[in-house]
């Protein structure tokens, strides 16, 4: 050996795991509705029970099954958000981008989605947004059927009413 070589102390060997996702009864119904372009949630079959979306089959607070399916609006309210300045590996979206905790009208829990067609500096808690869907022929069993949410020209929702709007966008 004529030249000195640096001692190799570390090699990177990432492990890729491919797995099948078994949705289970409640998410399967949710995903089947999503394929038709509809957002749904579930609640315990009793008056005033909170609506969960995406549903996982039981109410996390009580442990009881959420048997009743509820259709939701694709309009939502910003409960909170962050502006992300670092890229997501395998995702083409360019930072900075807004990831928001959104509550769909008719649901009582937030989910996370992207906001776009907005000035990041104008995004705020209580802001009204609506889903921008992919073209219908691309719909799959996936929340990615919604590309992002964009702000709409509706008055802000007061903080104490976020997460409490009915499917019509009015207070319950």
């Amino acid at each position, binding site marked *: 050996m004529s030249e000195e070589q640096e001692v190799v102390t570390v090699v990177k060997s990432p492990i890729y795991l491919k797995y099948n996702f078994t949705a289970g009864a409640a998410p399967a119904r949710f995903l089947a509705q999503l394929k038709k372009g509809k957002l749904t949630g579930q609640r315990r079959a009793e008056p005033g029970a909170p609506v969960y979306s995406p549903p996982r089959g039981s*109410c996390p607070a009580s442990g009881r099954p959420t048997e009743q399916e509820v259709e939701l609006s694709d309009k939502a309210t910003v409960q909170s958000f*962050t502006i*992300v300045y670092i890229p997501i590996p395998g995702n083409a979206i360019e930072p900075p981008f807004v990831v928001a905790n959104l509550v769909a009208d008719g649901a009582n*829990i937030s989910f996370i989605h992207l906001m776009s067609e907005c000035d990041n500096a104008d995004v705020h808690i209580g802001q009204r947004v609506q889903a921008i869907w992919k073209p219908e022929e691309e719909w799959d069993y996936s929340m990615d059927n919604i590309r992002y949410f964009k702000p709409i020209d509706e008055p802000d929702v007061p903080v104490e009413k976020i997460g409490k709007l009915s499917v019509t966008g009015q207070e319950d």
Partner: protein
Amino acid sequence: MANLAAVVGVGQTKYTTKRQDVSIAGLVREAAVNALQDADLGWDDIDAVILGKAPDMFEGVIMPEVYLTDALGCNGKPMIRVHTAGSVGGSTAIVAASHVQSGTFRRVLTVSFEKQSESNAMWALSNPQPFSTHLNAGAGGYFAPIIREYIRRSNAPKDVGIKVAVKDRLHGARNPLAHLQKPDITMQEVEESFMLWDPIRFLEACPSSDGACAMVIANEELADKAAKQPAWIRGVAMRSEPTTFAGRDEVNPQAGRDCAADVYKQAGITDPRKDLDCAEVYVPFSWYEPMWLENLGFAPIGEGWKLTMEGATSLDEGGDIPWNCSGGVLSSNAIGASGMIRFAEAARQVRGDAGDHQVEGAKLALGHAYGGGAQFFAMWVVGSEKP
């Protein structure tokens, strides 16, 4: 009634970005040997080993406790593994304490670790599922909106997070084991560090560290004969709640409030700010200091940030209730170990063994850990005096 138990030995590694000179086994053994030396004990003096770490998929080593038995000298002895996400170091210490308090074992070794240089914690936490969009940017992306909501509710000034980031690094500069050594850090430097997940800046987030922490916990009879001052365990509590449920208060989780109330009751604490001498609290993002000051009852709701800004939690400013004198998670974050480091540093304080970050005359200290989506909580109170 539980029997008395006490910490009679504490051992840690130096926290750093990459410990390439040791394997995971070497890392945990180093902390364990340090704890045994501190306790003036040998492997034969240990009845069982209780081990904790964050999820296995971080390093991709599944059930590491099985292969670590050799390194931890426990072939033929009971080995117990604990899993509670980021709070695991705290929960592991509590499980270890419980096995002594119950009389099952007389003296146990408890160890926790993370080797972040051999893992990718951020993306291990963000595996895609079809019912949600794949946007989860690790823990920071998850906690940033909760911090934003705290700022809205409390109307706290923008620089509270910056102040905590500076304070904990100045504390860390007193602790030779701390990963980040930034004795000259300034508010301006933190403010100008780049934004990661608005409102969390780079210097307002914890580093990624390799490291391990260990303790020896003994029953009353053995602790009375301990080589050094024991840290008597005055109360232990764990609580959890689901990640999401309608109406959940993510800023001020009920599980945290209930856990604190339980541990204070056991330790006879009525006013934590007054009764405790210091606290080691899990603050991985700077804004979690004011949030936990409120959740843990050190300040009224909406006013935690005032304690921070007044310097009440700062050793350097002579505060009355110093938080994270070791530098905290903001100075060292070996995830699985981070909770146990809080518990062990609380013990070091009441043993009078905390070196340059010692709170003078500390008699009663809180150790705290949280994990998951701020849904798992573990806390203990340790004291210099036998209850």
